[in-house]
C-alpha cells in the first residue's frame, strides 16, 4: 500500500474521530444567563461636639476654667476631653449627657502629672473634645480652647 493510499484511508477515521469529539463537547455545554444588581455602602460618621468655649469662674483665690461645648447631633456614649501641651497629652472622659468640664488643678493633678507641671511652669494647655460612640468610634475633635495658670495675686486656672 502506497503512502497516498494510506493517507486516503486515514482521512475517514480522522473525520469520524473529530465528529465524535466535537459532538460530545457540544452536548455538554450549558446555557447561561446573568445579571447584576448594585448596592452602595457608606460607613457612619460620628457627629462631633461643636462650639467649644472656655469661661473663667470662681473667686480670686479659687479660679477655675470651665470648658463647655454644644452636644453632638446624636448623643454619644461619652465625650473624650483631650488636654495637650506640645507633645504631652492626657485625656479624661465625661458621660455623653454632660457638656462641660471644670478644669482645676486638682483635676490636672489626677491626670498625667507632667501636665500640671507644665501648667505651673507657665505653659498654655489646649483643650479639645471628641464624641465617643458606643462602638468605640470617635468623632473629629472640636476646635480648641486654651487654659493656663492663674496670674499673680490669683490662684487656680483661667482661660488663656
Amino acid at each position, binding site marked *: 500500500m502506497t503512502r497516498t493510499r494510506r493517507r486516503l484511508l486515514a482521512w475517514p477515521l480522522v473525520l469520524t474521530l473529530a465528529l465524535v469529539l466535537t459532538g460530545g463537547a457540544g452536548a455538554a455545554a450549558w446555557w447561561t444567563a446573568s445579571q447584576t444588581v448594585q*448596592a452602595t455602602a457608606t460607613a457612619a460618621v*460620628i457627629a462631633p461636639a461643636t462650639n467649644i468655649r472656655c469661661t473663667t469662674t470662681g473667686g480670686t483665690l479659687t479660679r477655675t476654667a470651665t470648658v463647655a461645648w454644644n452636644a453632638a447631633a446624636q448623643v454619644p456614649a461619652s465625650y473624650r476631653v483631650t488636654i495637650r501641651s506640645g507633645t504631652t497629652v492626657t485625656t479624661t472622659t465625661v458621660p455623653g449627657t454632660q457638656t462641660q468640664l471644670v478644669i482645676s488643678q486638682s483635676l490636672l493633678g489626677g491626670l498625667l502629672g507632667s501636665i500640671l507641671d507644665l501648667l505651673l511652669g507657665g505653659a498654655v494647655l489646649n483643650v479639645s473634645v471628641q464624641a465617643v460612640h458606643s462602638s468605640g468610634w470617635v468623632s473629629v475633635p472640636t476646635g480648641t480652647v486654651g487654659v493656663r495658670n492663674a496670674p499673680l495675686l490669683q490662684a487656680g486656672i483661667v482661660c488663656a
Partner: protein
Amino acid sequence: MTATDHDRRPGGRWAGGAARWVIVPLLSLGALGVMSAASALWGAQAPVSSAQVTSGTFGLSATWSSAPNLTGILPGQSRDGVLTLQHSGDGTWRYRVASSHTGTLRPTLTETFYAGATCTGTPVASGALSAATLPRGGSAQVCVRYTLPANAPSGLQGATSQITLTASAENRPS
C-alpha cells in the same frame, strides 16, 4: 482494455486507484437508492403535520426585592437585603451569586449569602452553585447580610464601597 492493462500504464495505478475511491461510494449510494425505491413498493404513507423546530430561550432577571440600607452603618451592625432571581425561558436551572466591589469599606464590611428570603440557616459561599435545581420559569430568593465587625477601625468613618452582585443561571438537567 483489461484492468491489468490499465494498471500497467505509466501513472495508471494512481489514476485507477483514485477512480475506485470515487466509484465505489457512488455505486453504494446507487444501491441504497435502489433499495429505497424497492422499499417504497412495500411502504405505506400517511401525512403528518409539519414540525417546526425552534431553539429554546434562557434568561434571568435579578432585582432587589428588599434592598439593603447600607447607609451610615456602624461597627457591630448588620443590614440585610433580599435578591430575587427570576428565570425566563426553557430548561431547569441552578444559580450562583458572586460579588465584586470598589472602594475602601467593603474589605472590612463582610457579606454573607443565604438561600431564601431570610438570612438564617447555613450560609452559602459566594459564587457557589445552588444546591437545588429549579423548574423552568421559577424564581429563587437570596438573602444577603452585610456586617461591619465590632472591631472595625474608627478611621473607616465615611468610607464607601460600590458593591456589585452578579447572579448567574445555568441550564442544568433536573
